[in-house]
């Protein structure tokens, strides 16, 4: 059996939503280079929905794939749904990750939640 599922490899080889949003409404960065994984998420919010999302990742194949999948899962979604995104949903959408790579999906969840938090801090009127 290969190390990664076909879906992980697909998202790793052809990551979706790669890049930067210059005028992002929320930015979240988690992880550190010492541990070998850093994810940065940029959110553009319109009408309480994720109008656009981009990511940058320093990390292994599953870190890049998890970032990519996480952006796909939240794009166009209302913020109420985004705030409920879990690492499990990311891993499942990728048809699973090896046990010792599950932390990559956790980082993806944390990066998105960090970006959301940043948005709410900048727009306290939107916070519940």
């Amino acid at each position, binding site marked *: 059996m290969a190390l990664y599922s076909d879906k992980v*490899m697909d998202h*790793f*080889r052809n*990551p979706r939503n*790669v*890049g*930067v949003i210059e005028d992002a409404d929320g930015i979240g*960065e988690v992880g550190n*280079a*010492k*541990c*070998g*994984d*850093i*994810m*940065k998420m940029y959110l553009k919010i319109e009408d309480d929905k994720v109008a656009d999302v981009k*990511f*940058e*990742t*320093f*990390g*292994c*194949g*599953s*870190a*890049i794939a998890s970032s990519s999948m996480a952006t796909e899962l939240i794009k166009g979604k209302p913020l109420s749904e985004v705030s409920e995104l879990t690492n499990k949903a990311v891993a499942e959408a990728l048809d699973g990750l090896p046990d*010792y*790579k599950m932390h990559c999906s956790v980082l993806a969840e944390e990066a998105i939640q960090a970006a959301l938090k940043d948005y709410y801090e900048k727009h306290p009127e939107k916070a519940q």
Partner: protein
Amino acid sequence: MKIYADNAATTKMSRTAIDAMIPFMEEHFGNPSSLYSIGQKAREALEQCRNEVAEVIGANPREIYFTSGGSEADNQALLTAAEIGKKQGKRHIISTAFEHHAILHSLARLEKQGCEVTLLDVHEDGLVRPEELEAAIREDTCLVTVMFANNEIGTIQPIKEIGAICKKHGVLFHTDAVQAVGHVHIDVDELNVDMLSSSAHKFHGPKGTGFLYVRKGIPVTNLIEGGSQERGKRAGTENVAGIVAMTAALREAAARIDENAAHISAMRDRLIAGLSQIPHSALNGDAKRRLPGNVNFCFEGIEGESLLLLLDDKGISASSGSACTSGSLDPSHVLLAIGRVHDVAHGSLRLTLGEDITEEQVDYMIKSVGEVVEYLRSFSPVWRDLTAGKIPFIL
């Protein structure tokens, strides 16, 4: 283009080795301990192999013990030295911080059993300093174990100087020569090596076979009990076909050692020169005092596993010391030992060349690595911060 550039991990068996082993599976399959002719035929082959292996490293055939490979040989050598030391009340062992885990984990076990271990610094160039080794020797030092050549960064240690120091102080000297045998000249007498470990699959022999050299007069401690094989020092019916194939591979490697080294090291230097052109990259380990086929680089701002996966897509098989490829959170202990910080060690790439490497393949690797590094950097937040001046470049 398909390029296998992970010869330090394992090598493809040579045609000579495969051809040599087949008759010992089909016809001469007898147990070397049996007295009938097919058993004795196997016995004869086994002893002929012992003669040939011994000759390649300048040893006596009676000093060669066939094992399941390098790790077993390392384990047995350390246990042997520790047992001798114990009897003499000597419990101190000197080694290095960047040994193979077969050594480091064996040392950890010996520490639990009362031994004291000093790990020498290997400095930024990946080389042990003989004077530091001599200074570390104590009255109760029973063993010095220093690898011949490092498996990750390929640096070749000053084995002759270390051997001379050990001889002068009457301390046993073991070297894990798994990466060196068949690739560089080795003469155990000239080097004053008392014990040496080797593994067949690193020089185009089969996996699961190797040998331990132990100088005459040193009482060997058994790792495996159960029979009189290997003069009672390593039980278990001998892997005759494997040993025959290992010997054939070693004979071939030894006969071509100079021409192979000349060709491979020229290719290595071309590859090093090419990869050095990638901005913010650095070669790991001394540029010249390294194995002919070893190239090991760190690239800042990227992570090694994704680099390997994308190189695999381009037909290149390589390896990395990143944490993600090891299944642990820490990057390679070897890269940390030569002073590479975590951030940079995660972005390492090891390319280990074989005898059939061509200039065209080297140029393809230079181009491919450059493309993949550039691509990964294009969406690396670390690279963005580095280039924006938010954090300083290390390399």
